[in-house]
C-alpha cells in the first residue's frame, strides 16, 4: 500500500526518511503512537492465555536499560575514579 500506511517493521531502510515525513509528530500523534506501541507489546507478550515471566521480565530489563541511559551522564564519571 502507500508508504504512510505501512508499519515501521515493514518499511525498507531506504524508505525510512520518507516514511518518517508521513508520521504525525504532534503531541496527540506521539501519545497515540506510544499507546499503540504499548498495546501491541502488551497483546503480544502479556495478554496471552498461558503467559509466563518473560513478558514482564522483558519490560523490566528494558526499564533497567532506559534508566541506565537516563543516568549515563552521571555514571560515566565512575569509570576512571581512583577512589570510589
Amino acid at each position, binding site marked *: 500500500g502507500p508508504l504512510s500506511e505501512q508499519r515501521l517493521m515493514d518499511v525498507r531502510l531506504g524508505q525510512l526518511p520518507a516514511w518518517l515525513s508521513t508520521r504525525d509528530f504532534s503531541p496527540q500523534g506521539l501519545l497515540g503512537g506510544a499507546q499503540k506501541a*504499548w498495546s501491541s507489546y502488551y497483546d503480544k507478550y502479556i*495478554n496471552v492465555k498461558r503467559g509466563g515471566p518473560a513478558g*514482564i521480565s522483558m519490560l*523490566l530489563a528494558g526499564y*533497567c536499560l532506559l*534508566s541506565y541511559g*537516563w*543516568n549515563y551522564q552521571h555514571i560515566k564519571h565512575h569509570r576512571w*575514579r581512583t577512589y570510589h
Partner: protein
Amino acid sequence: MNLTLFDQFSPPSILGVSLLLLATLFPALLLPSPNNRWISNRLSTLQSWFLLLITKQMMIPLNKNSHKWAAILTSLMVFLLLINLLGLLPYTFTPTTQLSMNMALAFPLWFATLLTGLRNQPSISLGHLLPEGTPTLLIPALIVIETISLLIRPLALGVRLTANLTAGHLLIQLISTATATLLPIMPAVSVLTAIILFLLTILEVAVAMIQAYVFVLLLSLYLQENT
C-alpha cells in the same frame, strides 16, 4: 563535579528536564487494567488475587464507615510495594527515597484520619489522648506526651519509609563497591563480601515489602482509632 555517596538518589534527568514523574508513574505499566473478561491473562489474574487478599486483610479490623478508605489504602499499598521493589533493579530510581514524596504521602493521609475523627466523634478522638487507668497526678504530663506522639506520627511515617529505603540502597552500593574493588586484590575476601551482598539483597527485598505494608498498616490503625 561533586561525587558523593548520595548521588545515586538524585532523580534522573534528560537535558535538564527531570524525569521524576516518569519514574514514579512507571509502576502503573505493570498493572494491567481489568477488561470485561472473567479471566483475561495470568498477570491480571495474579493482580486481582493479590488485590483481593490485601484489601480483605486490611478491611477486617475497620468498621463500616472506614470501608470507603479501601480504594486509597489498597492503591497506596500496591504503589509503595511496586516502587520499592522496582528500586532494587540496577540503575533504577526509587522515588520513595525522596523525603519530599514520602511526606507528601504521609502528611495528608494522617491529617485526613485526624480530621475524620475530630469531625465525627470529637470526644472519642480527644479521649485517645489519655490512656485508661492512669494515676490522677500523671494526667497533665501524659496528655502532653500523647499529643506530641500524635503530632509526630506523619513525620515518623515519612521518615521511616525514607530512612529504611535510603539506608538499604546505600548499604548495597557500599558493599558492592567493596566487592568489586577487592576482586583483583584479595579474591577470597571478595567472595565473602559477595555472599554478604547476596544476603543483603534478600533482606532488601523483604524490607521493601515490609515497609510498604507497615506504612499502610499504621495508617489504617490511625483510621481505626478515629472512626
